[in-house]
């Protein structure tokens, strides 16, 4: 049996290994992904993001429990940051979800952001495809919402949930231009804490101010939850379902979503390919270091150096 067949039949070890190969950028993985693609597109993808410590993993854990009760299978992809100094990472999201590890209907995978060469967005999307092909009904992707990469990941989901906690105050203003705009659902977790009402009204104000954007479309609901006590989770899942129905409520809307997703996916894939091919290749050949040295000595400007490298590479064609 080939790797693709093993994955479609749900063989855990094969799935786990393929995701590793994707993460490690092994060229063979790409071939398997091509074979798997016809089997994707069935899963419903939910992205969850928010600052560290707002309770994303606990929220995911409870959502998985509810979805399992409803007999849905779930894949979880939990992304944690790589240390920029050592390149290592501690992936601790699993701690909150370990109770599901013996459940065959749940597959949990931790991933590090890796950075630089990581192609995080690309490898996460490919990992989603793998879980989709293995037949998971729902795939939940959890990321710390700090960088553009992380935002891109949750954007590729059907439904994006932004998680906040009370007492962030003016921080909301700072977040406004970034992740808040991509939220389809807002969850104020730890809602028993002081200031929850205030946070809800802050977010509401922000949405109301953006009236034009939401007038003919989906207006993000603001929900309160206490994930650790399993409070408010059912409501979140109801809203996810509603949002899913909204996305497919008209043929135009459905095609728009698919179009947008395909566009994002392809842009990311091309970017990733160029970075990994060009950059990795010139680092390997030493050309990168040589150019760097010339720039440091101010014998060449970085614009010319970049032109030289990229044009040469484009002319010589890709492997």
């Amino acid at each position: 049996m080939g790797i693709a067949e093993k994955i479609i039949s749900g063989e855990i070890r094969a799935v786990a290994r393929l995701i590793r190969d994707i993460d490690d950028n092994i060229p063979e993985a790409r071939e398997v992904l091509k074979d798997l693609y016809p089997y994707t597109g069935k899963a419903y993808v939910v992205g969850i993001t928010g600052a560290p410590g707002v309770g994303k993993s606990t929220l995911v854990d409870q959502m998985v429990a509810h979805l399992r009760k409803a007999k849905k299978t779930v894949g979880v992809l939990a992304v944690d940051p790589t240390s920029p100094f050592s390149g290592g990472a501690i992936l601790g999201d699993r701690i909150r979800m370990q109770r599901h590890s013996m459940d065959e209907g749940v597959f949990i995978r931790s991933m590090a952001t890796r950075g630089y060469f990581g192609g995080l967005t690309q490898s996460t999307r490919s990992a989603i495809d793998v879980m989709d092909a293995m037949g998971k009904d729902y795939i939940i992707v959890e990321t710390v919402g700090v960088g553009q990469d992380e935002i891109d990941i949750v954007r590729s989901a059907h439904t994006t949930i932004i998680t906040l906690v009370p007492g962030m105050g003016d921080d909301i203003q700072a977040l406004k231009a970034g992740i808040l705009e991509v939220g389809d659902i807002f969850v104020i977790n730890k809602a028993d804490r002081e200031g929850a009402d205030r946070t809800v009204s802050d977010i509401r104000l922000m949405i109301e101010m953006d009236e034009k954007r939401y007038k003919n479309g989906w207006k993000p609901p603001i929900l309160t939850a206490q994930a650790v006590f399993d409070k408010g989770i059912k409501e979140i899942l109801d809203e996810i379902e509603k949002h899913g129905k909204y996305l497919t409520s008209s043929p135009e809307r459905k095609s728009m979503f698919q179009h947008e997703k395909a566009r994002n996916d392809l842009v990311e894939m091309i970017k990733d390919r160029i970075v990994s091919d060009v950059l990795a290749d010139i680092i390997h050949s030493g050309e990168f270091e040589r150019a760097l040295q010339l720039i440091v000595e101010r014998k060449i400007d970085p614009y010319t150096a970049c032109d030289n490298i990229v044009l040469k590479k484009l002319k010589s064609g890709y492997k």
Partner: protein
Amino acid sequence: MNQKRKIRVLVAKPGLDGHDRGSRIIARAYRDAGFEVVYSGLHQTPEEVVQAAIQEDVDMIGLSSLAGAHMYLFPRVLELLKENGADDIVVCGGGIFPEEDIPKLKEAGIKEIFVPGTPLGEVVKWVEENVKPRGS
């Protein structure tokens, strides 16, 4: 594309043992050495440890035990790895063990045992020398 594979490690605490200071420090040392460390938390059954290791496709499991049940828990992890066709994953252990248990654990297939006082550098070096990322 020639990115080097990273070593992936699962740090786990099987059994009824609530002390994870040591395993957290080890996890941190592994991270600083450039490994990707999955930390699965306290009170794990051997079954949960093995499932996590398989789903995460790790190269090594580091088991921590301070509660005295290692003679059951550690070999049980090895047994389950074998049952699941995953006995290529290296298993080592750390914690407090009666001296006479250490050779028995090694005989059962635990690759190395680390006891209190082992310098972090040594623990890391052992992994670098004895654990190869899969496929390399």
